[in-house]
Each structure stands twice: as structure tokens, then as C-alpha cells.
């Protein structure tokens, strides 16, 4: 009897220790890689071009009235946070979403954001923490509809946004521009995107459309079907999505046989991919894939933002890809200057400089350094291959 209890105790002790360890791991907060070297937050915030009170309809169809120009903003979504920076409102933010340290755009353009209290993620939103910040306006992803309702009851106006694709992102920009009284600046942002789209449309009309396979963040074999933003990105950059036949609305898993059957001419890795271009080139299963034999495997840059997602600077992903697919029609130097212009104008930092710095000064995002493929290096590789 005695012995059995001893064993039980020992077991229970082990269990507790295991749980303590796991709790410790869970409790560890993201170490924000905050650097003070980034540019200060962008200059002119196009204030006062709205007459308050303003009523807007958010992307959940709710009517929200904002009584006065909001001075204390909370953003619970990285896309809206990035947008608020672009609209020159970084200084008015008093709280942002969790894991801000993993977004290089913050440290590049508004490092002060990394010091702000976080209000949690879409999984676990911190209602009380958010209320404690006493915000004038809260912007949340549509997923946090319940939290929005509760905050509204507490008396805080909440905008729900859903920037799932290009059109919805445009709408998001318009709504937030109107609600924060920065309509002229948000219009400028939209105009920039429209201008680039028009430019590319003109340049690429009639051009050949190569087959492009876009590999997702988690593995080479996850890809975006035709219903996704990323598929749109490929066609706007003058390519055809190799996985267009897939109709999933989220990253779908395929197998090697399927990939070989599609035989894409280009393989593009998502910005935050956990694997590298080398991994793909060295993959024995892909030896005979057209993209691998011709060396046309690239990773979308993610030094500032993941351009393969509908962020305000998402157009830059299209601009970048157009130079990869059609270097003759869309020269890389043009693309590089467009990218430079965008970040100078809306985020107040120099992409090429920060870029050189980040490649010396890794990692901006912990754990992903091996996956980082700076824009310039990718170009260099391409030129070398072309020369060979």
C-alpha cells in the first residue's frame, strides 16, 4: 500500500513539474525586437478634413457614430495598425494587437508602437485592458464581433474591419479615413495603388503569362487557390496561378505529384515562409520541375511587411512580382524606386537603407532569419542565373 502511494506521489509530482514548465513557456511574452533606429513616425497627418460627429458603416454592417475627432486609438489588427501609420496617426495609437514585435514595419516607421500596451489577439482579446486605455475609437478585425459588442456596451465606439482582399482593403481604408478625419491622406494611399495597377495593366497587356506557383508560409506544398487574394496578386503581376483549379478559400495542402503535374515556370515563396529558396532548389522531388531547372524560385520580400497579404502596401508585392516575371517589361530599377517612394511617402523611412541595415542586422523577426531573402540579393541571384 505504502509503495503504491509513493509511486502515485512521484507521478503526480512529475505531472505538476511538466505543467509548470509548459505554463512557463506559455507565459513567456514575445520579446519585442525594438530598435530605436527606425525613422520617426511620418509627418503630416491630414487632420480636420471631417466634420464631427461622423457616422460610418463598418465592414460588419454596423453603423458607428464618432462624436469628436478621435485622439486615443486602439487597433487590434496588424493591417489596421499599419494603415493608421500610413495615415499619419501612429502617435494617436494608445494600444495595439499582440505580437507587434514580429512586424518589422512598426520598428521601421514607428518604433514607439512597440512600447504600447497590447490588447491581445483575435484569439484572446483583452476587454478590460482595452477599456483601461479609455480609447476614443477601437478598430478590430471582424472576427472580434463579440468583443466589439461588449466594448460598445461599455461606451467605446468600435469599427470592425475585414480587409480580406483588394476591394475590401480599399473599403477599409475609406472607412478608417473617414472615421479618423484623414480622408485626403487615405485617398492618396488609394490613388498610389490605383496608379500602379493602371501602370502595370498598360505595361503587361498582351504579355505572355507564365505559370506561377505560390507556396505558403507553412510548407512548400501549401498553396493559394483562385478564390484567394494571392491568386489575384499573381494575375495582376502578369502571371497565371498554377493552382487556379483549387477553390479553397484558405491555404490548401497539395502533394508533390500535383505540383509536378502543374509544372510551374516560377515558384514564389510567401514572405514568412519557414523554409528557404535553397530548400526548394535542393528538393530531390522537384528536380524536374520547370521552375527548379530554370532556377526561377524566389521568395517574396518581407523586410517591411508581408507583401503577399492585403496590407496597405500590398500593391508592392504585385510590383515586385511583375519585375520577376517580366524583367524586360517592368525593369527592376523601376520597381525598386516605386517601393522606395511608397515607404518614403506613407511610412517615412527609406526602404533601401533599412533594407541594407536589416540584412546586416538580423534578425528583425526572430526565428525567420534563414527564410529572409532580401530584395537585392534575390535580384542578384536572378541576374547571375541570367548571365549563366
Amino acid at each position: 500500500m505504502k509503495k503504491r502511494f509513493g509511486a502515485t506521489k512521484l507521478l503526480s509530482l512529475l505531472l505538476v513539474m511538466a505543467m509548470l514548465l509548459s505554463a512557463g513557456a506559455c507565459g513567456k511574452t514575445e520579446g519585442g525586437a525594438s530598435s530605436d533606429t527606425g525613422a520617426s513616425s511620418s509627418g503630416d497627418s491630414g487632420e480636420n478634413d471631417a466634420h464631427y460627429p461622423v457616422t460610418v458603416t463598418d465592414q460588419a454592417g454596423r453603423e458607428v457614430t464618432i462624436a469628436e475627432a478621435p485622439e486615443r486609438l486602439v487597433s487590434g489588427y496588424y493591417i489596421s495598425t499599419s494603415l493608421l501609420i500610413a495615415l499619419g496617426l501612429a502617435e494617436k495609437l494608445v494600444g495595439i494587437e499582440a505580437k507587434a514585435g514580429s512586424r518589422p514595419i512598426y520598428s521601421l516607421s514607428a518604433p514607439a508602437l512597440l512600447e504600447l500596451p497590447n490588447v491581445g489577439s483575435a484569439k484572446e482579446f483583452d476587454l478590460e485592458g482595452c477599456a483601461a486605455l479609455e480609447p476614443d475609437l477601437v478598430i478590430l478585425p471582424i472576427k472580434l464581433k463579440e468583443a466589439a459588442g461588449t466594448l460598445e456596451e461599455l461606451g467605446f465606439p468600435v469599427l470592425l474591419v475585414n480587409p480580406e482582399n483588394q476591394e475590401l482593403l480599399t473599403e477599409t481604408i475609406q472607412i478608417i479615413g473617414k472615421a479618423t478625419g484623414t480622408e485626403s491622406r487615405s485617398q492618396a494611399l488609394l490613388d498610389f495603388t490605383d496608379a500602379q495597377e493602371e501602370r502595370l495593366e498598360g505595361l503587361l497587356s498582351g504579355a505572355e503569362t507564365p505559370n506561377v506557383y505560390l507556396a505558403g508560409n507553412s510548407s512548400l506544398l501549401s498553396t493559394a487557390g483562385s478564390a484567394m487574394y494571392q491568386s489575384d496578386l499573381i494575375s495582376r503581376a502578369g502571371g497565371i496561378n498554377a493552382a487556379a483549379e483549387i477553390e479553397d478559400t484558405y491555404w490548401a495542402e497539395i502533394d508533390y505529384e500535383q505540383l509536378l503535374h502543374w509544372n510551374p515556370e516560377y515558384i514564389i515563396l510567401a514572405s514568412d515562409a519557414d523554409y528557404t529558396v535553397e530548400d526548394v532548389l535542393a528538393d530531390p522531388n522537384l528536380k524536374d520541375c520547370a521552375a527548379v531547372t530554370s532556377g526561377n524560385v524566389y521568395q517574396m520580400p518581407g523586410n517591411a511587411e508581408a507583401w503577399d497579404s492585403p496590407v496597405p502596401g500590398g500593391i508592392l508585392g504585385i510590383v515586385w512580382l511583375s519585375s520577376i516575371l517580366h524583367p524586360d517589361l517592368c525593369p527592376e530599377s523601376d520597381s525598386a524606386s516605386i517601393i522606395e517612394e511608397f515607404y518614403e511617402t506613407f511610412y517615412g523611412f527609406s526602404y533601401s537603407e533599412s533594407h541594407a541595415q536589416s540584412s546586416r542586422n538580423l534578425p528583425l523577426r526572430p526565428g525567420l532569419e534563414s527564410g529572409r531573402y532580401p530584395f537585392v540579393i534575390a535580384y542578384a541571384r536572378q541576374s547571375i542565373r541570367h548571365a549563366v
Partner: protein
Amino acid sequence: MRYKLLCALCSGLLAALILLSLFTGKYPLRLEELLGGNELHRRVFLNLRASRTLVGAMGGFALGVSGFVYQTVFRNPLASPDIIGVSSGASAGAAAGILFFSGAAAVTVSAFLGALGAVAVVLTLSALDKTGRNSSIVLAGIAVHALAQTVLMCLKLTADPERELASIEYWIMGSLNGVSIHSLGGNLLLCLLCLIGLFLLHRQIILLSGEEGEARMLGVSVGKIRLLVLLTATLTVSSVVSLTGLISFVGLLAPHGARLLTKDNRPGTMALAGLLGGVLLLGADILARSVSAVELPVSIFTSLLGAPFLISLIGRRSS
């Protein structure tokens, strides 16, 4: 009486934790502002703190009591709501709710129906065995548990990994965060009624704990009464779990704690199991929302607080 003293002690502890819970949180709530009629403070207090505290205390109580009932009826010290498929049914139901409907209310209803559905299937399957043995319920429970897990897996497969899948995983981890005062009413009323029912049925629960032939010869219609007791206990658990997601360990640990402390199985012991459950869940929730800058799943702390308590009790018993 020893168990009266223990009950009083636990009630006091629970009351203290309720007070602590009402004044712990990220929002700097101040008593003078609250009493001074500050509208914002009042709303934070009512909509966030009070509802969360209520769910913590009552949910813990319900889990403790129903754990006591399951362990007694199944004569199995490891019995938990999972033994007849409540947890896995609720998980599958919640996953379906997250995928096909939107809104917390829909997920709550769907989880509740999932739990009841799973238990209904278990009890129907076990009725196929005409001898009406406990073991047939346990076997049917295992089968339905596996089936519900499969359904859950299929639902997870179709879920969008970043949003829906994450929501499903997080639901399964359980949390008292975001329970709103407006969605509580129905669940808490049902829970309260079922708890009263369980206390009234205490004598029958004890009769069911014996051998089946013996219970029958004491005039118990074993099949019917067992169905009644199990359904009541299941309704109790489902009403809580559908609000909070799965909460581990409370239903297992609280009854053991109560029995080890009192060494009997009176209605007082059942109440003590409930009180311990309330203390455990509320204590865990206070930690879950105050330990780190982000909200942590409450189950981490129920296990973390519960395991040493159980070990100390076992240690005391063996010495």
C-alpha cells in the same frame, strides 16, 4: 460536525475569492468611482467583472458537483463528463458552431446541443444492451467519444487554419474571458435548476452507486433513475462548458478533494465538492487574467492549482 466546518471554511474562501475576482483585472476599477456613480466603472463592473466572476464561481460549483455525481454513479474514481461523451460532444458542437454559424451565442447553443446529442447517442446505444449494465454505458461512451473526435477532426480539416481553426483550438482550451452578461441568463438558470435537482436526487445517486441487483431490490428502477441522474448532471455540465469551453481537472479533482477531506458521501460532501470546484475555477481564472499581459487559458491554472492540492491530500491520507 466536521463537514459543516469544512463547508463553512470553503464558503468563506469562495466568498473571499469572489471579492478578489470582482476587483482584479486590467481595468483600474476603483470603489469610490463605482459608488460615486461613474457610468463607465459601473458598466465595466457589471458587464465584465461581475459576469466573469459569476460564471467562475457557479461554473466551478457545477463542475464539482457533477463530477461527484459521475464518479459515484459510475463507481469510477476517474469518471468525468468525458466518460459519457459530454466534453467531446461539446467540442464537436462548438467546432460546428464556429464553422457554420457566427457569434458567441450560436457557438454556445451549438456546443450545448453537441454535448446533449453525444450523451443521447451514448444512452441510446447502451440501451441496446438489455442487461442495462454500467459497463455498457462506459463502452458506448468510449465509442461516441471516438466518433465525436473524428467529427471534430473533420471539422478542423475544413476549418480555415488562421481563424476558425485557432478559434476551435482556443475554445477547447477553455476560458472565462468574454462571457457577457447578456448571454449568461439561460445557461445559469438551467445550471441552477439542475444543481437543485442533483441535490434533491442525492439519495438516488447513492443508491445507484451500489450493485445493480441490490439497487433494484431496494426498489430503484435502475435504468430510469440512472437516466434521470445522468441527464441532469449532463445538463449541468453542458450549461457551463458551452459558455466557457472545456475546463480540465475541476470535475475530477473537486469531488476527490471533498471526499478525502470528509471521508463520507453525504449531501454535504457533494456541496463541498461544488465549493472546492468554485474555489479552484475562480482562483485559476484570477491567475489566468493577472499573471501575464495576455490572457492565458484557465485550464493551465486549474491543473496547476489542483494537482498539488490533490497530492497533499493523498500524502496526508497515506501518512
